[in-house]
């Protein structure tokens, strides 16, 4: 029996997933109705979907006139236009846009650091973002694919209905972070990345540069060669954590750390140094991705967690994010 004046021996921190009570995106989402995916990309033909591509196809949307080639349907020859070019010119054939469904693939980093800070966990914002995009995608009968990066359960899920979109929170809650499940995760993901896909990575990029990051960067670069539309959103909670740490003597506990961590005398200089170190780490981590400025954006956490919850802050970020603006057609 412990003595009354002794503090209880501090147990290891609970698993991040157990400590955070993830909330689903509210059902009242009329504000989402103003958004409409506008993903004009070069898509393969002989597919049908809600979005037009520059691939020639059989839709009603006119694309261009091309000279007649053997095998073309004679009914597609526009005789009136061909007559304008004279008898020496090849007959011109009317070409139409092809219709293909959009694959919106969202990779969410599920590793332990994403479940911090407790006042406003990054994983909560990532969940809401994924849910919002899933609802928009399913509303337009396109395909939404959730990829859970660094999870020990099945990592890739295809969402085709609003009802399935509403169950994403359960998939998040069921996750136990496991960085060892990387290879299979990315192999599954590669199968869900057709050239018509839009790939969005959501994470905090706090992890050490390991095999996961290398494999991910490799996949990212291969996507570039396939002209895949790729986006990366960096969830940066440092401003909130910096304010939370404050100044003075501190014992700082991160994912998987216990009370045996050393004590620090924290001041502004220390925090500046840490901030610079975080920035350097992220830069080094993302360098293999060869990001262009229009491919990535960062969501900086406010210094103080919103009193009325993070949902309003999330909606604000959703509306203002330049990457998402390009994705949506208002």
């Amino acid at each position: 029996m412990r003595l009354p004046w002794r503090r209880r021996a501090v147990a290891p921190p609970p698993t991040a997933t157990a400590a955070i009570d993830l909330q689903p995106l509210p059902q009242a989402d009329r504000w989402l109705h103003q958004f409409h995916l506008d993903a004009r990309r070069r898509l393969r033909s002989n597919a049908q979907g809600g979005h037009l591509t520059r691939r020639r196809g059989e839709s009603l949307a006119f694309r261009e006139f091309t000279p007649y080639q053997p095998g073309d349907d004679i009914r597609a020859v526009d005789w009136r236009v061909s007559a304008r070019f004279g008898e020496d010119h090849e007959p011109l054939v009317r070409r139409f846009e092809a219709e293909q469904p959009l694959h919106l693939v969202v990779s969410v980093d599920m590793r332990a650091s994403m479940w911090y800070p407790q006042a406003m966990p990054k994983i909560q914002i990532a969940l809401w973002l994924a849910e919002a995009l899933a609802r928009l995608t399913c509303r337009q009968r396109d395909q939404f694919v959730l990829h859970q990066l660094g999870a020990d359960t099945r990592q890739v899920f295809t969402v085709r209905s609003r009802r399935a979109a509403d169950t994403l929170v359960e998939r998040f809650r069921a996750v136990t972070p496991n960085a060892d499940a990387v290879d299979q995760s990315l192999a599954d993901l590669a199968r869900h990345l057709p050239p018509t896909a839009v790939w969005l990575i959501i994470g905090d990029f706090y992890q050490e540069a390991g095999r996961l990051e290398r494999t991910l960067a490799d996949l990212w670069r291969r996507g570039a060669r396939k002209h895949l539309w790729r986006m990366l959103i960096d969830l940066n909670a440092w401003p909130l954590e910096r304010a939370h740490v404050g100044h003075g003597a501190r014992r700082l506990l991160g994912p998987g750390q216990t009370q045996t961590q050393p004590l620090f005398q924290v001041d502004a200089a220390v925090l500046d140094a840490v901030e610079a170190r975080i920035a350097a780490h992220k830069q080094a981590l993302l360098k293999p991705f060869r990001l262009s400025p229009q491919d990535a954006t960062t969501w900086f956490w406010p210094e103080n967690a919103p009193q009325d919850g993070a949902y309003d802050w999330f909606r604000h970020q959703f509306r203002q994010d330049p990457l998402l603006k390009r994705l949506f057609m208002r």
Partner: protein
Amino acid sequence: MIFFAGLCAALIPLLALLHMRKPRYLTRRVSAARFFDEVTAAENIQTQWRWTNPLKSPPFVMQALCLLLISAALVSEDKVWYTVDEPGDLHLWVWIDTSSSMATQVDGTIMLDLARAALRENRDALAQQQRRPILHLTAFDLEQRDLGHNLSPAQFETAVAALKPRPLGTDLSLPMRSRERDEGRLQGADPLVLVISDLPAPTWVRTDPNARLVWHDVGDAVANHGFSEVRAVANPFLGGQPLIEIAVHRFGAPTEVRLDLKARNDAFHDNLPIRFQADRGTYLFTPPKPGVYELTLVPEDAYGADNQVVIAVQDDAEFVVDWRHPDRTWLDQLGWQNQTDHAAFTVLAPHQSADADRQRPRLIIGPGFQPGETRIDWFREGSPLLDQVNLDVAETLRALPAPDLPPLFPVLADSNGVPWVGRHDAPTTVYLAGFPTGVGDQARLTTLLWFNAVQTLLSKGNANPLFTRTRIDAATVETNLPPFRLDLHPGEGRTWLPPQSHGRERLTATDTPTTIQRSVLWWPWLLGAALVFFALERVLAVIGGPAWR
């Protein structure tokens, strides 16, 4: 205790000090913690003492209360909180007579059943006193048998129901001797002794009017006749044909009683009426031949144990003694045959008494007499041992004390307590201070004492007895094979005595308080309260964890 109480109290300031110990740092959980690993650690800021009011900490209050209560419990070791009145205990020590006479028939039942009924009656009387009876049960006849102390009523009833009369006599002094010996044995209580017997209260009961003793005589006047004594009266010292004296008593209405005499081998049979004078009749019987004879009184009556006697008449009347005394002068002078087997009695010195046969009569001879004046201070009047003795002559001699003398009832002793003559039963023992000595009256006196002792040992039938009586170590009747063991104890057949109880009013008396005051001390309650606070603090600590502080 004061020291330990002070120690506990001194722990309270120490406890307060420990509650003021606070961690100097704050713990923060952040996802960027690992980026602090290049920051220099500062380990000298672990804890600090910070003035806080410990009374604002519920755990401290509980712990301090716990210590205070323990201190108070140690200090108030003998302090009485309050007293309560509780019903007083009444230790009732019941003695029930289980001797042979308790089998006497009375109106279709036996005397022991009357004793059980009397016991129920007495318990009913006790039940009205609002005291809690604590029962102890003892059966007695020739021995005391404790059947249990602190018995519950059910156990008591069971033990009483299992009692049966035994073919033994009654030693009425057993309750007195046991009471003297067992004073304070029953948890320090002075028990009320209730003796239930078919015999009248003995005189010793009345000697101490303050004695908490009740004698309940359940006996009733029942007509009875029986053998008083059957003994050989012919002096084997002189030789000759055996002669049997048969004494018969009769109580109650005069009835015709006949004596049936029969040899077991059917060689002799006689039947004759007994002539009573003052309810006593005597008949001298000369057995025609040695052998076994059955003597029966007819008709049967309420107490049958004294109506039949079986005797064995020896065929060898030769007189022999077992002489072990180192002085063999008188053995040679008397010309007695010295032989261990079939000896009439044993002659020995005081220090040899432990080695002798415990069943055979003894004549213990002391260190002797010396000339000199002495004063006789004690003599038992009427004792056959002093028959024809001139005590004036005795005061011209001085008996030497015997250091190894076993316990004896003195018959003749001087003013210094030195016994001249003493006796004891079981086995019959006579003590003489010395062999015949001196001249003239002194020689006649000491010789007379010698032969009185020899005659006593022989005339009592102790030598080659016709039968023996049941004993504590042989409490069964044996009439088939010699030596015959009969339930023929003096006094058991005296059933005509009117009931004579003593002190029965004590059962309903209120000489002892019906309630006793029980003191309730402080310390168990204080200790219990301390335990409650301790348990509460521990439970809350388990539930609340470090935040509970």
